[in-house]
C-alpha cells in the first residue's frame, strides 16, 4: 500500500519534521521506495517466533539491570553551568522555550 501526501504529512507531524510541499513530495517517493524494500518482510512465516529485542537473547537469558532511582550526580553551580552552556536559549539557569500554556 503506497503512501499518499496526507500519509506523509501525518508521519512528518509525528516525527516533528517540518517538510515544505516540495520536500514532502520527494519524501513520499523515497518512503514508497523504502517500503517496497522492507515489504519483503511480510512474506516470511514467523508464526510462533518470539520477537527479539536484545541480540544476546539468542545466547543467554537476558535480564536488564535497573539501578536505584536516586540522584547519582553531585549538584554544583559549575556542573549546572556546564550543562546549560549548550542551550540555544537560557536565562537564570532555566531553558527558554516559547510559551506553552496560555
Amino acid at each position: 500500500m503506497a503512501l499518499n501526501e496526507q500519509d506523509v504529512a501525518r508521519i512528518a507531524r509525528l516525527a516533528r519534521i517540518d517538510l515544505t510541499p516540495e520536500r514532502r513530495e520527494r519524501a513520499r517517493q523515497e518512503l514508497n521506495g523504502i517500503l517496497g524494500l522492507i515489504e519483503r518482510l511480510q512474506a516470511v512465516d514467523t508464526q510462533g517466533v518470539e520477537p527479539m529485542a536484545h541480540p544476546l537473547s539468542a545466547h543467554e537469558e537476558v535480564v536488564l539491570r535497573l539501578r536505584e532511582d536516586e540522584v547519582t550526580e553531585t549538584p554544583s553551580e559549575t556542573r549546572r553551568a556546564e550543562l546549560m552552556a549548550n542551550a540555544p536559549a537560557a536565562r537564570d539557569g532555566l531553558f527558554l522555550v516559547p510559551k506553552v500554556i496560555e
Partner: protein
Amino acid sequence: MTLHETFGGIAGLRAALDQRRVSAVELAQDALRAVAGRADLNAFLHVEPELTLAQARAADARIAAGQAGPLSGVPIAHKDVFVTRGWRTTAGSRMLADYVSPYDAAVVERLERAGAVSLGKLNCDEFAMGSGDENSASGPARNPWDPAAVPGGSSGGSAAAVAAGLVAAATGTDTGGSVRQPAALCGVSGIKPTYGSVSRFGMVAFGSSLDQAGPLARSASDLLAVLEPMAGFDERDATSRPFEGPRPGYERAAQAYAQAGARPLEGLRIGVPREYFGNGLAADVGAAVQAALAEFEKLGARRVEISLPRTELAIPAYYVIAPAEASSNLARYDGVRYGHRAAEYGDMIEMVSRTRAEGFGPEVQRRVLIGTYVLSHGYYDAYYLQAQRLRRLIAEDFQRAFAGQCDVIMGPVAPTVARNLGENREDPTADWLADVYTLGVSLAGLPAMSVPCGFGSGPVNGRRPVGLQIVGNYFDEGRLLAVAERYQAVTDWHARRPETPRCGGPSSDMESR
C-alpha cells in the same frame, strides 16, 4: 611515514616509548603535523593541539614514573560520535555543530586511562547513518587509496586516518557494518565486538539494540591492544555485560594455533556461507576473498560450506529496526537543551519541527520518517514486530552453524570495492543493499572483523582494497583476533600503504625531522 609507524605496530611503539627511544610528545607533534598535512583527506573534524600535547606530556610523565599504561603514548583518534569534554562532538550533524559535551564517553575515558593520546575527532556519516561518509555535514572523508573513492562509512574518517598512517588506531562504531565496511574499503583491520562488550555510555545513540563500538588499526595484534582496554563492564550502560575481555580467549586460541607447526590452524573449521557468494558479489572481490580462504586452508584450516538462508532478509529487517530505534533516539534533538534551534518560529511545535528540518540532513530525515511510520499505530505489528521475529530467525541461523558445523564464518565484507564519491546520490537505498553481508551479524549481535585480503582488479579497482570478514560466536572475539593474526603472519595485505601525495602539501617542508 609518520613517526609512530616506524616502530612496527603498537607493541613495538610501546617498547620504544618505555626504552625512551622516542617520547609521547615527539609522537604527538609528528602526528599533529601529519594530520595538518593531510587536510585533503577531510578525516579529522576537530583538532586541538594543546589538548593532544597535554595528554602526551601526561603519558611521558607516567612512563618516566614507571607507571605506563598499556597504550601510554600511542596516538589514536575518536570517531565524532564519542562525546568528549575537550573536543567538540558533532556526530557529523549540523544539529550538533557547536556541541561541547560536559562529560567524556566511557570509551574515551578508558582509552585515556590506558595512556592513549588523542589527536582529535574523526569524520563520519551523520549520526553514523550511511556507508560512504557522504552524509557528513562536513563533507566526506576521502579514501587514502584513491581520492575519487569513498572511504566507506559510517566510520569513514576512522578508516581513512588509520590507512593514511595519521594515527596508530581509531575508534569506530558499528550498527550495521560501520566499522567493518570502511575498514575493508580503506585496507585496514577493524573489529566489532559482541554486543554488550564495550560500553555505549557517551556514544551518540543511533540504534541502541545494534550499536557497538570497536577499534580500527593496522593489524589484528593492534586491534587486540586497543580493544582490551576499551572493553569491559560499565554500570552506566544498561546493556553492558560482564565478560572476561578479549585477551583470555585470544591467549587460548593463540596457544592452540602456535603448537601445530607449519599448519597452525589445523582443526579450525571455517564456515563459508553460500549466500555470501551469489550474483551480487563482484568478481574481483570474490576472487580476493577466495584467495584468502585458500591461504587459510594452507594454514591447516578446513573449509565447510554452510547456509545462512535469510541473508538477504537481513536488509528489510535491519531497515525497519534501525530506523525505528533511530526515530526514538533522535527524538531528543528538539532545540531545547542543546543543539541547533531554528531562527524563526511561532509556537513550541513549530520550533521543534523547524529545528529538526534544518538540523538533520536528508538521510537522517528519511530514517526518522520511516522509523516513525513503522512504529505508528496500525503498522507496529506488521513491520516492527515482524522484523524482530525475523531478527530471531536470523540469529538462530548463525547459532545453527556455530553449533555443529564451524568455529568461525568467513566471507566478503562488501559486494564491491569502494565506489566513487557521488555515485548513488539519486537512489538513497542503493547503498543499503550493499550492507547485505554485514547486517545479519549486527542483528544477531555477534563479533566480526574485517582484515585486508587484496585489491580489486583493473585500472581503477586495482588500487582499491578488499576486506575479508571473519565472524565468530558470542564473546569469541579473542579467537577471531588470533585467527586473523595467523593470516597476517603469512600475508602482507595489512602492511600495504597507499602512496602519500608529495606535491604542494603543507607537510612537505616538515618531513625532515
